[in-house]
């Protein structure tokens, strides 16, 4: 890309230097262009159009918090020593002086209390990890509820899903590095989960920990995973995610002039780039502000890892809470077969976790199998136009949430003065009842919103002004919608249940019936015509009663006065 010197300006001696800079830029740009021939690509990117909506910005938040993670993580790596060698702590934190701790724990304390800015960087790293996962989840929900995962974006959904799972791995491996009591407890749970796998479990655990738990290998190993393996995978997948985004072009909400064939928005350069740059600094600012003011993970309070103590309030970071919840809810079921202990209390939760993740990953494929829809979709669904999908999504969230809440049962109990036993039972029942309940409630709400939209498309908005004609008839004045607004209300897809037979399996017929048996008939052209006629007729009646003046008598008097 080249920059040109504005030659209309009269040059003063001051300007001369800046014009030299311009020329340098031009020459430099040209130099690069001739060697990389990237001009075409840059132009292509610069002219890409991105639509604008606040709900599209959470993916960006995730990206930016990842950048902050990389920057702060690099800083931490310079001072952290992933070694489980035992040393005697002699740093400035008095209540641990003389304590035997691992090098990893000692160096974490050094970062916190001795390295300048170390505590801030530690907190930035940890807070941005939490924000990274929050942003991924919100972004994922946005994509889900607007149907942005539909063809051609199914693969990108899988890439995003994998990023979410990798985010959990990154978070968990990082959380374990300081070698404090809390992180050791987390590893203990992983150890337990692995050992519960029949036959191979013990070997797996021995392999991971390099012998008996906890051993002296796990932290160096997790360190490699945490700073090399997982970040590299995340970076690679982010690249794929973004390339696919550019290839597919961004989706947009239905609106005036927006079709399946265009994208309405701003060009990347300069508008979107400037905006994204600004947004990066805002995210950076928010995370820095939070990290400078709010404590996170004070490892010195938990103390160095030692297998015996377990503190009250031992929980993983929020995005791993759900994996702890199942373990807290399940009764202690286990039995012995041929001398092997089968720990159902571990295996059942693991099965549930697998099902939750699997259903999330496969949903786009399940839905397209049900609808049989093979068209490309670049216009987003308004969530209420897909009642069953929206219901299923909310129901998935409710299971996730109940698991996460179950993992915090002790904190809730003390916070709300409830009995932890009652809470556990409430969650045990809730996990079966609530998802079903919220599914039906959400679906009902969506359907009634659809009905409302249909009414509005046909009859316009109500003005709450009622006219009485000479004959005593009461008529409400309706404001007709303009074409664009009406189009938004009537553009969505309509599916019907299929009959089994003729190439439709009975399973698919049942699935379509589950998805589409409750549907609101979309507005047909004939209905619209009729509505227009009715409207014209009614308007005529109203006009003859009011003389075309829709003001109330009070308003008329007010204006006259």
């Amino acid at each position, binding site marked *: 890309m080249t920059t040109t010197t504005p030659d209309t300006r009269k040059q003063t001696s001051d300007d001369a230097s800046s014009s030299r800079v311009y020329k340098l830029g031009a020459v430099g740009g040209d130099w690069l262009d001739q060697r990389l021939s990237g001009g075409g690509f840059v132009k292509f990117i610069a002219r890409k159009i991105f639509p604008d909506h606040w709900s599209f910005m959470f993916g960006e938040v995730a990206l930016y918090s990842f950048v902050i993670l990389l920057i702060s993580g690099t800083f931490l790596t310079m001072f952290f020593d992933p070694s489980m060698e035992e040393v005697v702590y002699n740093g400035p934190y008095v209540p641990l*002086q003389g304590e035997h701790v691992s090098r990893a724990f000692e160096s974490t304390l050094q970062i916190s209390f001795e390295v300048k800015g170390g505590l801030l960087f530690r907190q930035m790293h940890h807070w941005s990890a*939490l924000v990274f996962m929050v942003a991924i989840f919100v972004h994922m929900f946005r994509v889900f509820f607007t149907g942005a995962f539909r063809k051609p974006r199914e693969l990108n959904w899988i890439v995003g899903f994998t990023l979410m799972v990798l985010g959990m791995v990154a978070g968990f491996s990082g959380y374990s590095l300081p070698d404090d009591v809390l992180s050791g407890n987390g590893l203990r749970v992983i150890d337990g989960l692995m050992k519960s796998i029949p036959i191979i479990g013990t070997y797996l655990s021995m392999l991971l920990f390099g012998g008996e738990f906890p051993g002296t290998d796990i932290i160096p190993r997790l360190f490699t995973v945490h700073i090399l393996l997982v970040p590299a995978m995340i970076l690679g997948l982010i690249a794929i995610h973004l390339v696919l985004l550019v290839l597919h072009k961004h989706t947009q909400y239905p609106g005036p002039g927006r079709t399946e064939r265009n994208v309405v928005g701003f060009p990347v350069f300069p*508008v979107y780039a400037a905006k994204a740059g600004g947004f990066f600094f*805002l995210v950076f600012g928010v995370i820095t502000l939070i990290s400078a003011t*709010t404590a996170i993970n004070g490892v010195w309070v938990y103390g160095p890892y030692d297998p015996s103590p377990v503190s*009250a309030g*031992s929980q993983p970071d929020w995005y791993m809470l759900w994996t702890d919840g199942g373990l807290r809810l399940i009764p202690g079921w286990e039995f012995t077969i041929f001398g092997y202990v089968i720990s159902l209390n571990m295996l059942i939760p693991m099965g549930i976790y697998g099902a939750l993740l699997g259903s999330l990953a496969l949903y786009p494929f399940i839905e397209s199998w049900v609808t049989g829809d093979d068209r490309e979709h670049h216009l987003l669904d308004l969530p209420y136009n897909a009642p069953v999908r929206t219901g299923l999504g909310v129901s998935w969230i409710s299971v996730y949430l109940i698991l996460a809440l179950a993992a915090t049962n002790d904190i809730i109990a003390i916070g709300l003065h409830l009995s932890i036993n*009652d809470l556990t039972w409430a969650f045990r029942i809730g996990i079966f009842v609530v998802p079903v309940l919220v599914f039906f409630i959400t679906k009902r709400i969506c359907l009634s919103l659809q009905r409302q939209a249909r009414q509005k498309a046909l009859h316009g908005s109500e003005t709450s002004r009622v006219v009485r004609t000479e004959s005593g008839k009461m008529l409400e004045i309706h404001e007709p919608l303009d074409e664009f607004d009406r189009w938004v209300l009537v553009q969505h897809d309509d599916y019907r249940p299929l009959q089994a037979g003729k190439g439709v399996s009975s399973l698919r017929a049942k699935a379509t019936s589950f998805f589409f048996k409750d549907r609101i008939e979309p507005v047909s052209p004939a209905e619209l015509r009729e509505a227009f006629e009715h409207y014209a007729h009614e308007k005529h009646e109203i006009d003859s009663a009011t003389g075309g003046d829709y003001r109330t008598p009070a308003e008329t008097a007010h204006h006259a006065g």
Partner: protein
Amino acid sequence: MKALAARRHHPMALLVILLLALVATGGLYVAFQPQTAQAESYTQDDVDAGEALFLANCATCHGRNAEGLQDADGSALGPSLIGVGAAAVDFQVGTGRMPMENSGAQAWRKPPQMNDEQTRQLAAYVASLGPGPAVPDEEYLDTSKGDATKGGEIFRINCAMCHNAAGAGGALTRGKFAPPVIGVDPKHVYEAMDTGPQNMPVFNENNLSPEDKRDVITYLDALEENGSPGGISLGSVGPVTEGLYAWTIILSLLLGCAVWLGAKAK
């Protein structure tokens, strides 16, 4: 595969075992109560004044002779106080737990109703009924003589599973809870360990010597003094409140930025 079964435990299982062990220790204490209380010198006047106060404020639940009372259904209104010692009275009355207001899962800490003198007199009266742990000597409350690091180790192993590593408190079964221990008067910390109020196990002189108790007090003092170097502590209850903070405060800040930028662009 016994080894496998033994190692399969969830941290909660560990906690339960520890609790059981501690409760058992408490039980043993009651059985073989060491009668080593260094009796503070109370005068007969103190005892008499204490008895009068007791009859007026405590006898309705604990009985006229502190022998304990049951209601019509046979459930205890108040336990016998014979042999609980001056330390128990000083703790219960000094932290406002006694006289108890209404029966619930647990007696709550509240502003004390008795002044220091009255508390001393009540303690004198209960101490006169039978030997028990006495109010600790000043010497064992002096944090300048304690070792915070050793106290920290003791605290993490013996207390953190109920009171949380940061001393922020935690939930027990059936609505009972271990209260926060930061900011509690050192004397009351000592007495809590010595008498094991309600669901707390007793840490008698055989499992925690007076010097050990002083180390614990020194550690709690250091924790309080150290505060929260990272800023707002969010209640010091760990990752749960941190996650909640991320989902509420931080997410709304970011949402605000996104909406603001969106509005700016138009």
